[in-house]
C-alpha cells in the first residue's frame, strides 16, 4: 500500500522538535536558539545522568567527578533558570495540551462521523468549566475540580444515551449538548453571583500561564498514555466510517470501540482542560486540516493530528505571551484568530465538501 503519510509524520515530528527549541528561545529576555539548544541538551543529559545514577551510582559519580559535559557552559545561571524552569515547562505543556485536544477531536470526529465534533462536543468543557468555577469561588484546587467535572460529565452523558446496552451516536450528541447547556447555565450563574468573576472568565478563555513542571508531569502521563491507546483504535474507526452495520459485519464490536474511544478522549481532554482552561478551535480545526493533507486513514491521521496540534498550540502560545509587552493574551483568543482564517482559506481552496 502506498503510504505517503509516513513522510508527513516524519516532517511533523521534526517540526515539533524545532518548534519546541525555537519557542523556548523566544521571550522577553532574549536568549539565542543555539544557547537554548545547548541548555536543553545539558538538561536532558543531566536528567539521564541522574536516572543512570539510580541504577549505576559509580558511573555517574565518576562522570560528575571528571566534570564530563557534552557542551561547554557559556550561559548564565539566570538564563538557565529562564529556559529550564520557566519557558521549557510552558512550551512542553502547550505541546501536550495541543496534542491532546487535536487527537481527541480527531477521535470524536471519526467516532461521531460529524464534522462539527470536537473534544468538547459532548459537554466535557462545560463540566470542566463548572468544576473550575466552583473551585474558584470555594477556593479549592482548580486543576483537580475541573478534571473531575469533565470526567463526571462524560460518565453522565454516556449513561443517559445508553439504550439497551447500545449508545446511538445521535443520542450521545444530543444528550451531550443538553447536559452541556445545563452545566453552562450553572457556570453562568456562578459567574453572575461571584465577587471576582474575572478569574473564572479568564480561565474559560484558556491559557497556559500557570504552567509548571508539576503540571507537565501529571498531564504528560495521562495524555501520552491516552493518545497511544487511542492509536490502537485507528483501524476500527476507519472501518466504522463505512457505517456501523458494515463494521459489525466485519467483526468489529462497535459498542466496545465507542466506549473505549469515548473514555480515552475524555481522559486526555480532561487532563488538557484541567491545566489550560477551555482552549477552543485546536481540537476542531487541526484534525480537519490534517484530513485534507493526509486523508481519512486514522493510522496516519491520528499521529499527524497529534503532532500538528502540538506544533500549532506551541506557536500560538508563544505569540500570546510575546505580542504585547508584559501582558499575556489568553491563548484561546490567538488559536481562533490564526486558525479560523487559515481554515477558511483551505475550505475555499478545496472547493468541495470537506467531509461526508
Amino acid at each position, binding site marked *: *500500500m*502506498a503510504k505517503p503519510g509516513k513522510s508527513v509524520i516524519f516532517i511533523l515530528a521534526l517540526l515539533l522538535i524545532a518548534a519546541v527549541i525555537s519557542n523556548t528561545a523566544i521571550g522577553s529576555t532574549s536568549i539565542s536558539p543555539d544557547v537554548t539548544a545547548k541548555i536543553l541538551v545539558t538538561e536532558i543529559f543531566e536528567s539521564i545522568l541522574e536516572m543512570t545514577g539510580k541504577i549505576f551510582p559509580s558511573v555517574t559519580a565518576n562522570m560528575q567527578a571528571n566534570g564530563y559535559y557534552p557542551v561547554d557552559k557559556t550561559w548564565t545561571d539566570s538564563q538557565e533558570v529562564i529556559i529550564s524552569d520557566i519557558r521549557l515547562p510552558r512550551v512542553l505543556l502547550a505541546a501536550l495540551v495541543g496534542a491532546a485536544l487535536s487527537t481527541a477531536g480527531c477521535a470524536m470526529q471519526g467516532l461521531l462521523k460529524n464534522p462539527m465534533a470536537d473534544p468538547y462536543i459532548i459537554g466535557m468543557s462545560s463540566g470542566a468549566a463548572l468544576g473550575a468555577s466552583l473551585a474558584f469561588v470555594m477556593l479549592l484546587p482548580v486543576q483537580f475540580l475541573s478534571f473531575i467535572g469533565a470526567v463526571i460529565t462524560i460518565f453522565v452523558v454516556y449513561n443517559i444515551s445508553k439504550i439497551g446496552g447500545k449508545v446511538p451516536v445521535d443520542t450521545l450528541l444530543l444528550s451531550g449538548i443538553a447536559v452541556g447547556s445545563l452545566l453552562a447555565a450553572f457556570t453562568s450563574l456562578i459567574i453572575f453571583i461571584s465577587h471576582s468573576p474575572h478569574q473564572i472568565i479568564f480561565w474559560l478563555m484558556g491559557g497556559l500561564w500557570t504552567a509548571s513542571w508539576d503540571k507537565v508531569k501529571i498531564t504528560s502521563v495521562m495524555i501520552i498514555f491516552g493518545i497511544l491507546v487511542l492509536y490502537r483504535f485507528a*483501524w476500527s474507526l*476507519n*472501518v466504522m*466510517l*463505512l457505517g456501523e*452495520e*458494515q463494521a*459489525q*459485519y*466485519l*467483526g*468489529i*464490536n462497535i459498542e466496545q470501540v465507542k466506549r473505549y474511544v469515548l473514555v480515552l478522549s475524555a481522559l486526555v481532554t480532561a487532563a488538557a482542560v484541567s491545566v489550560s482552561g477551555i482552549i477552543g478551535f485546536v481540537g476542531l480545526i487541526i484534525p480537519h486540516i490534517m484530513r485534507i493533507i493526509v*486523508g*481519512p*486513514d486514522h*493510522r496516519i491521521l491520528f499521529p499527524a493530528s497529534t503532532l500538528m496540534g502540538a506544533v500549532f498550540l506551541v506557536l500560538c502560545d508563544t505569540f500570546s505571551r510575546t505580542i504585547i509587552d508584559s501582558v499575556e493574551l489568553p491563548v484561546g483568543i490567538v488559536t481562533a484568530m490564526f486558525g479560523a482564517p487559515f481554515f477558511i482559506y483551505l475550505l475555499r481552496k478545496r472547493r468541495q*465538501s470537506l*467531509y*461526508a
Partner: protein
Amino acid sequence: MLEIRDLSAGYGHRHVLEQISIKASEGEVVGVIGPNGSGKTTLLKTITKVLEPISGTVLIDGTNIDEMQSTQIAKKVAVVSQVISINFEFTVEDIVLMGRTPYIKGSETVEDINIVRDAMEKTNTIFLKDRLITQLSGGELQRVIIARAFAQNPKILLLDEPTSHLDITNQIDILNLVKHASRKGMVVVAVMHDLNLAAYYCDKICLLRDGKLISVGTPDQVLTPSNIERAFNIAVEVIPNEITNSLYVIPVLEPLHETLH
C-alpha cells in the same frame, strides 16, 4: 453449510421473522424473495449475529453462532449490502483491506496483502487499486464491496439486494461473479427483488411474506402464479423462457388506457 432452525427475530416486541427454517449448502445459490418489509434484511442481520434472535438457532458448519465471537463469525460469513456511496477518501485497496479486519492483529501482513490482491483480481477491480473510493461508478463500487467480502475468505456469502441500483450490464456482471464463487464452493444466500434474475441464478428460492416462509424449493416449485400472488398481491403469468432455460415472470397488467378510465 448454513442451517437456520425455527428462527424468530424482531425489534423489541415486534416479531419480524417467525419460525423460519432454511438450509443452504456449498455450491448452492439460495435466493430470498418477498415484498418490502417481509423480513429479508432482518434474516441476514440475524445470521451474522448483528441482531440477537428471539428464539431458534443459526448453525454455521454445525456450530451455533451463539458460541461464536463476532470476529469468528466475520471469518466465516461476509455480507455484501447495497452500497450507494462512500464519502471518505480511502483508496480502493484500503477498502478491500478492511475485509481482513477479523484477521488483522496490529497491522496487515504480506499474506493479508496477497489475499486482498487476489480478491481484487477475481472481481476485476485490481486496476482500480489506487483510485479513491469516492470516484468510482456504482458498478465499480459494488464490485469493490464484493472484493472486500472475498478478502474475508468466507464460507458463506450473504447478499442484500446487491444489484437493485445497478444497470442491467452491471447486474449480470455482479451476479455472474457470485454464481462463480458459489460454484467454487461458497454458500451464497442472496436477497433479491428481481424475480427473473432470481429464477435464472438461484438453485433454491425462499419466498417470505410478513416474516413467514410461505414456500421453499427450486425456482420451478416456488415461482408459481399462486405463490407470487399470495406474497406480492399481484397477478402474474409465469412462462418458460426458452432462451435462458429458466422461468419468466410477467405481471398481468391491464392496458394502461383502460386503468386510467
